[in-house]
């Protein structure tokens, strides 16, 4: 049992070390600054600029968070402060189902619904678009990360003591003032943390995004451009060109970037929720 525990505990470390070792070949031949900020991606010419992929990933993730965070926050507030108790009981399985739907199913729904939708609304913003865009990826992702963010937020708001609410109400504050000035403030470490976890999930999500985001190696200028996020890059190319060792190593470096970013946001989120109890 102890061995199993140790195995589980060392797993992230092993993966991290493995990725690092695999990417040393690339790192030995290129400066890390160059890799992260160079715009040219021509593996056959030994040009490995990750910049377009990193920017795509950031765009998709931010779009998803900007859509999902306010929706989740308002939903959590409604469920815990306004709705009847049984409603929350109904919501829990719904959230679990949302979380359990396989990624590829979200991808299919995205292709069938979101992509045509984005394609139709694009002209409103003066653009022609196939619909395979950053925005589509962001919308699909926002639905996928909703259950994770929502679950944490509901827990946070439920754990705020009634007495704090009563204190504010007894000062003559209305319910909305109490929510706005007291509850949200009290919940703010939790809100930050839930968004951090949302980011780390969104950043690494592969399948569903890959299916709707266009996969064009170009730096996206707005949400209606196609993009090519890091996970999609790895999933699409790994296994194909392993004959070129440097390419193999480059994809591993891509995975390492993902690993570090996701780890970073995970740790930050956990720290905020435990350490950042400022008030």
């Amino acid at each position: 049992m102890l061995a199993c525990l140790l195995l589980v505990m060392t797993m992230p470390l092993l993966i991290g070390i493995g990725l690092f070792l695999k990417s040393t070949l690339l790192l030995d031949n290129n400066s890390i600054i160059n890799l992260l900020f160079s715009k040219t991606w021509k593996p056959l010419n030994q040009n490995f600029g990750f910049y377009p992929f990193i920017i795509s990933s950031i765009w998709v993730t931010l779009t998803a968070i900007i859509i999902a965070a306010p929706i989740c926050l308002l939903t959590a507030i409604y469920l815990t402060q306004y709705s009847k108790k049984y409603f929350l009981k109904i919501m829990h399985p719904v959230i679990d189902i949302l979380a359990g739907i396989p990624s590829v199913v979200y991808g299919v729904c995205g292709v069938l619904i979101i992509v045509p939708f984005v394609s139709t609304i694009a002209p409103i913003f003066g653009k022609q678009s196939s619909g395979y865009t950053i925005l589509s990826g962001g919308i699909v992702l926002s639905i996928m990360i909703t259950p994770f963010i929502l679950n944490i937020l509901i827990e946070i708001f439920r754990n705020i003591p009634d007495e704090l609410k009563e204190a504010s109400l007894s000062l003559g504050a209305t319910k909305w003032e109490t929510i706005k000035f007291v509850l949200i403030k009290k919940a703010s470490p939790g809100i930050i943390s839930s968004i951090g976890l949302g980011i780390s999930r969104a950043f690494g999500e592969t399948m569903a995004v890959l299916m709707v985001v266009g996969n064009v190696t170009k730096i996206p200028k707005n949400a209606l451009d196609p993009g090519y996020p890091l996970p999609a890059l790895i999933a699409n190319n790994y296994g194909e060109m392993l004959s070129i060792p440097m390419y193999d190593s480059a994809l591993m470096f891509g995975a390492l970037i993902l690993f570090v970013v996701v780890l970073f946001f995970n740790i930050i989120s956990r720290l905020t929720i435990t350490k950042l109890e400022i008030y």
Partner: protein
Amino acid sequence: MKATETEIKINNLNVFHGNHHTLKNINIEIPKQKITVILGSSGCGKTTLLKCLNRLTDLYSNIKVNGEIIINGEDILHSKEDITNIRRKMGLLSQMPYPLPMNIYNNIAYGLKISGRKKKKYLNKRVEYYLKQINLWEEVKDRLKDPASSLSLGQQQRLCLARGLTVDPNIILADEPTSALDPVSSNAIEELFLNLKQHYTTVLVTHTLRQAKRIADYVVFMYLGEIIEQGPADEFFNNPKMEKTKSYLRGTSN
């Protein structure tokens, strides 16, 4: 002792938690600018009674309240007046201090701000005034921007008391406000109540007999949701009429 006016008149108050009859036929006349102590063992409905007074019972859908609570000639349980105005007339102090998630300054300024007074100069003056009233000013004047949770429990409880005073209430409702505090802090709170009673009508819930003896002017003794006996403190402690009261005062109640 001069004849006292009545601040709060409770008529035939009945409260149900679901099917459980928590308060049974409560009738009390709470005297103005005195300390009324509601005394009784845990679970006898003291806290519920207090929450009825500012209708925090509204928050819980499973609680039903019948009867009348008359303040200033108006039945607040059936009043058309905005509930926030009713609550503003009463400061509330709960068992544990629950400072708002803000700094010390804003904990005091909050009540003023939400009632529409936002001028910085005015707020500064009022914050100082209220902190002085609860003898906290000297202790915190150099760190008003610190989070309120950085204060000790006793300081937090005094801060909460001051916070309640900012909305100019006539009444202070206190629910076992010293039960979580050390003796020194408890004394500080009790003294504050004694100082404040010339301006405010205080309703204090406690299960500590000694505390009741120290500060009560009027005592209501409750047992399992019913009032067993009530009367002026002297009479209640020196000449109790009911058998249950006598045994409680002797400390043999069960």
